[in-house]
C-alpha cells in the first residue's frame, strides 16, 4: 500500500503547531484531578439546581477563583446545602479548561 508522504508531513506539522498552542495553558493551569464520584454528583447537582431559575452557565465562563465565590453566592441565593455546593464547585472547576 502506497502512503503519500505529504499528508503525513502535514499531520506531523499540524500536531506540532497545535501542541505549541495548547501546551502553555495545560502547563499553567494544571490542577489536581477531582474525585470522580464528586465530579459526577456535581454535574448532576449543577444541572438540577442551576436550571431551576436560569439557564445553566458554561463552566468555562469563569475561572476557578471566580467559581469559588460565585458558587458560595448561589448557595445562599438558592438555598443549596453545603455538600451540594461543594460538589457543584468541584465539577465547575474541573470542567473549565
Amino acid at each position, binding site marked *: 500500500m502506497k502512503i503519500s*508522504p*505529504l499528508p*503525513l*508531513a502535514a499531520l*506531523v*506539522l499540524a*500536531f*506540532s*503547531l497545535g*501542541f*505549541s498552542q495548547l*501546551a*502553555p495553558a495545560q*502547563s*499553567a*493551569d*494544571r490542577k489536581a484531578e477531582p474525585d470522580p464520584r464528586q465530579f459526577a454528583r456535581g454535574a448532576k447537582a449543577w444541572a*438540577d439546581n442551576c*436550571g*431551576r*431559575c*436560569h*439557564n*445553566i*452557565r*458554561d463552566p468555562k*465562563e469563569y475561572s*476557578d*477563583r*471566580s467559581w*469559588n*465565590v*460565585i458558587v*458560595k*453566592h448561589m*448557595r*445562599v*441565593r*438558592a*438555598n*443549596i*446545602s*453545603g*455538600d*451540594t*455546593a461543594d460538589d457543584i464547585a468541584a465539577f465547575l472547576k474541573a470542567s473549565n479548561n
Partner: protein
Amino acid sequence: MRIWPQQTDRSHSDIRDARSAPAVKAIGLAFAAFGLSQPLPALAQTQPSIADLERRVEALEAQVRQAAQAEQELQALKAELAEVKGRTAKAESDASQAQSTANQAQSDVTRVAAVNPAPPDDNSLIRFQLTGSVVADFSANDAPGSHSSFGEAKFLPIFLASYGDRLLFEGHMEVSSTSDGETDTSLEYAQLDFLVNKWLTVTAGKFLTPVGQFQQSLHTPWINKLPTRPVGFVEDGGDEPLSDIGVMVRGGFPVGSMKATYAAFVGNGPRMGDAGPVLEGFGGDDNSDKAFGGRVSIFPIPHLELGLSGMHARIKGLEAVSGTVSQADYALIGGDFAFTKGYWDIRGEYIHSRLDAIASALTPDDLLPTDIPRTTWNNWYVQAAYRLAGIFDNPIVAKIEPVVRYSQLRVNGFSDFQENEEKRWSVGLDYWFAPSLVAKIAYENSNFPEDPSVNSFHAQVAFGF
C-alpha cells in the same frame, strides 16, 4: 496446398525483419547441404527436413520477439524504481523537517512555562468577584397619549467578597437613567452571610424578602423570560414583597430521597403608601412591630419545586398634616411551583394579602387621614416557556424560546387601591445568544376594570455577567 518457394521467401523476409543472423545462416547451409548431397529425384524426400527447420526458425523468431518485449519491460521497471527512490527521499526529508518543527515547539513551550509559572493555589483569605447584569429595552403601546420609547438603561452590578470559607458579602446596586435625564441609584440588597454549617446560613442587612420566587429569584433581566414583570410582581407598590432590612436564616437539606429548603426573616417591614403597603426594605422602622415571614419548599421529584410562603407585619398609617393615624395587621400567604425539566420551564405563583382597616393618609400632603376599609389583594401568574432545541437541530432555531404568561391582580376593599387591578396576557420570543445573553420581544394585552384595554410591544436585550 503450400507452395514451397513462396513459403521460403516469406520466411527469409521475416528473418531479416527480426534481424536474426544465426537463423539465416542455418537456412542457407541447409539448402546447400541438400543441393550437393541429394539428386533431384530425391528432392521430395528432403521436404520433411526443411519443414522441420522451418518450424525451428519460427520458434527462434518467437523467442527473439519475447526477448525484445522482456527488454522493454525491464527498462520500464528500472524507470519506476528510480521514481520511487526519489519520492522516498523526499518523504524522509519532509518528516525530518516536521520533527525539527515539533522539537522547536516543545522548546518554546518549556521556555514559556518557565517565564509564566502556574498560578498559586487560590488560598487567599479574601476573595472578590464582580458580577451582575445590564439591560436595555424599548416599548410602545396604543394607550391614548402614550409614546413609544426606549426604556431605562440599567446597570445592575453585584459585588461579592468572601472571607475564608464561612463569610460572604453580597451587594447589589441598580443604576438606571430616568425619563427626565437623571441617573437613579438604588440598593437592591447589601447583606452579610455567615455560613454556619452546610444546612444553615445566617444573613444580616438588606436582603430580598424570602417570599415567593419571582422577586427573590427571577426578576433579574437575563433570568426573567419576558421583558416585563407579571402584574403585581413589580418593584414599586407590588403585592409580592421585594426586600427588607433585618436578619434572615436560610438553607437546604435532604429529606429522605427528596430535598427541602427554608428561609425565615425578621425585618423592619412594610410602610403605608398611596397604593397600599410598600413592601420594600426601609432603613428604619416607623413602629416597634417587626415583620416576620419566610418560605419553605420541597422537591417531591428532582425537577419540581413546590413552595409555601407567609408574612405578617403591623403597619402604621401614613401621617397626614393633622389627625390621628392608626395601625393595622398585614398578612400574606402564597404558594408557588416550578417545573424545570429539559427544555421546559413552567412556573406560577399565587399571593393573597390582607390589610385590616386602617386610618391613613394617602399622601403626606393630605390634611386628614382616610378611613381605609379592610382590603385584600389576590395576585397570581402562570408562565410556560419551551426552548426549541428540543424539536429542531438547526443552530439558529434551537436558540429560540417562545414564552407565554398570564398574570392578574384583583383588589377587594378600598376603591382607590382597585385602580391597580389588571389582567394581562403576554406572549414573547427569546433568542439566546449565550446562556446569559438574550434578546426578547413580546406582545401584551392588558385589561382594566374601568379603562379600555391596552396593547403593547416590548423589546429587550439583557446580559448577565
